[in-house]
């Protein structure tokens, strides 16, 4: 019997093998169990943020459902000018700073990287491969190594002996001084990812456009950009989460004032020198994760959607 089956015409791989595997009832149940387990800590954090400090230390967060005793105290303490948090005007100025830092620090690298990726993929010039591999190799440099030299460049410039190669840029402690490092640190990975995507676009499309007389900019603008939306959106999510959650770069390049510090710089300190106000961390942590959640859910369909499907027959 088995011989017979084997002797049949060679079987092609099941086209939807993956879908079948993950679409089975067992897989669905497993995924749900994993999802629930992974969400429980967040749910606990969320409910805890509405409980009073004495309740939090006395009983577990699930008791909120048995004995509902809600308070907005943890939220009002971080948003108002309370002495508890140690932040004179509440966290709102820092939330705004986080946006002012994050939005340009996402737009800048994406813009540069998309153009660079197109250029490296479709504009043949001498040494373009070398440039691409060079950029790819830059990913190996850990950002921790670059932090202090970059800060030195901003504050003191570059000198060899008494010859000034680069004058002091004087952008440390300003918004530009944090957009630039974030852009720099993001570019290698952004160019690499987008290059891989853009170079896999069908050559026929580019050639057809070329025959129709389109310039490189036209091709980039009319063909490459619309087709690259999934890749751009995917990288936007990565970059947004990275910059929003960043603490290291912000600590190094911001000046520690209300005018520029992002939220993360202040979050850790909310609990106080001796950690006596740890309850404030519940509400502030939830405020911080709210924004990435919104970004993720609004862009997540690009993770699964393939825009390219159907564009080329």
């Amino acid at each position, binding site marked *: 019997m088995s011989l017979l089956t084997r002797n049949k015409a060679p079987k092609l791989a099941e086209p939807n093998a993956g879908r079948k595997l993950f679409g089975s009832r067992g897989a669905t149940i497993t995924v749900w169990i994993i999802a629930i387990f992974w969400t429980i800590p967040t749910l606990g954090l969320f409910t805890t943020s509405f409980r009073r400090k004495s309740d939090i230390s006395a009983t577990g967060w699930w008791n909120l459902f048995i004995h509902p005793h809600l308070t907005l105290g943890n939220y009002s303490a971080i948003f108002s000018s309370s002495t508890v948090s140690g932040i004179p005007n509440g966290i709102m100025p820092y939330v705004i700073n986080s946006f002012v830092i994050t939005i340009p620090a996402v*737009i800048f690298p994406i813009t540069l990287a998309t153009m660079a990726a197109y250029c490296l993929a479709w504009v043949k010039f001498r040494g373009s491969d070398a440039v691409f591999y060079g950029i790819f190799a830059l990913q190996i440099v850990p950002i921790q190594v670059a932090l202090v030299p970059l800060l030195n460049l901003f504050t003191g410039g570059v000198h060899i002996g008494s010859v000034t190669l680069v004058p002091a840029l004087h952008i440390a402690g300003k918004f530009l001084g944090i957009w630039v490092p974030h852009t720099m640190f993001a570019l290698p990975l952004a160019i690499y990812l987008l290059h891989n995507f853009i170079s896999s676009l069908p050559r026929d499309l580019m050639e057809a456009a070329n025959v129709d007389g389109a310039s490189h900019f036209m091709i980039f603008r009319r063909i490459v950009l619309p087709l690259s939306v999934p890749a751009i959106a995917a990288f936007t999510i990565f970059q947004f989460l990275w910059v929003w959650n960043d603490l290291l770069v912000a600590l190094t390049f911001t000046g520690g004032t209300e005018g520029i510090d992002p939220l993360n710089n202040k979050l850790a*300190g909310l609990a106080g020198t001796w950690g006596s106000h740890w309850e404030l961390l519940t509400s502030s942590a939830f405020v911080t994760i709210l924004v990435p959640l919104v970004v993720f859910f609004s862009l997540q369909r690009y993770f699964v959607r393939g825009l390219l499907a159907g564009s080329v027959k």
Partner: protein
Amino acid sequence: MSISKKGLLAGVATATIALVATFVAPAAYAGTSAAACANVGSGYAVQKGKTVEVFTSVVGDELTRYAKASADFTACTGIKINWNGSDQFEAQLPVRVAGGTAPDLALVPQPGLIAQMVATGQAVPAPSAVVNNINRYWSKSWRNLGSVGGRFYAAPNSANLKSLVWYSPKQFAKYGYTVPTTWADMFTQSDKMAAAGQTAWCGGIGSGGATGWPSTDWLEEVVVREAGATVYNNWIAHKKGAYFSDAPIIHAMNTVWGWMGNSKYVGKVSTIATTSFQDAVTGIPSGGCMQLQQASFIAASLPKGSVVSPTGDAWVYYLPGINPAVTTPVEGGGEFYLAFNSNKATVEVQTFLSTPQWAVSRIKAAGSNGGWLSANSGVPAATYSNPLDALSAKYLSDSHSTFVFDASDAMPAAIGNGAEWTGFTDWFANGTPVKTVAAKIDAAWPSASN
């Protein structure tokens, strides 16, 4: 499509920048206030619109108290103090100094970090007004802690004291015991307690992964009391003549063994290693054991309802000195203001922070719970609303005090948070000979530390 989206985002960004600008617009300076100046002292020039950044590891509500305490100074001089707290202070300060964005002033909690910052060449020695204040208000050992290579850099901020012994005033009154003022008296009385069948000393060094640390304090107290600050500091630096196996430290370890390792006073010695340091204090109010050497924070571990007062269930006395040549030995910690420039505004703030006026307003800002002490002898004792603080401050601000930093915190982590803890735990649990314990700790000393 992408352009319109970008345009929108750019618009949002600009709008948020504008919004931030309105948020951070500096508040208009109201002008010199006579009432505020009365609390600040004289000699400050008005410098409107200047901001001085003080970078510190203090965060949260504690930092609010610093801002509150400096409000009068700002009202009087127009200089705004930006108290910039970060829980990453120890890591960030070297980065900022190396990167050229050093703060105006840093509140450094470790003398070792002061030396490290001075070595970068960016820290500046204290201005003459601060030098005058340190000479006038602090004991010599505090000045030495803020000095590097013979030059004075950093004036102290707050201080804390470990050299305390907990006892129960009620139990002492019941049995007719008195607070001892000399090391010899303390042991004569302990002998009396032992003769009466009481446990003279409580002890517990259990602390999870940090088991052993309370016993390092016992040795530190004895080392400074017997051998003085020079040997003590050489001991921290692991200099020849002050290794664990060298005579002064071995002698001190034997003294500790005759005290906390003495079954006459503590009962079964090995239980010290298995009793948690919090549980050690629970016997004080009931007289289960009579005395415990521990810092003031242990009050939180007293049984519920215990009254902490000079006539209540629990109170402290100062652990007396041993060697009369070592005057008022005190062990504890503190922080120091280190400046990175000599701008007029920085100097003025630095000067203010070294005055008794600053200490007094900072103590008042702490409120009735206290918790902030100064070793500044210009602070009147009546300023402290918490009597425990007042008692600690009395010894810290003694102009003859021999102040030393907690040695196990200042030694390399492999020793101070490692070999010393495990060695001492072994010592108390198994009665391992002193010389073996000392040799093991010396052998563990990281060779690169010198």
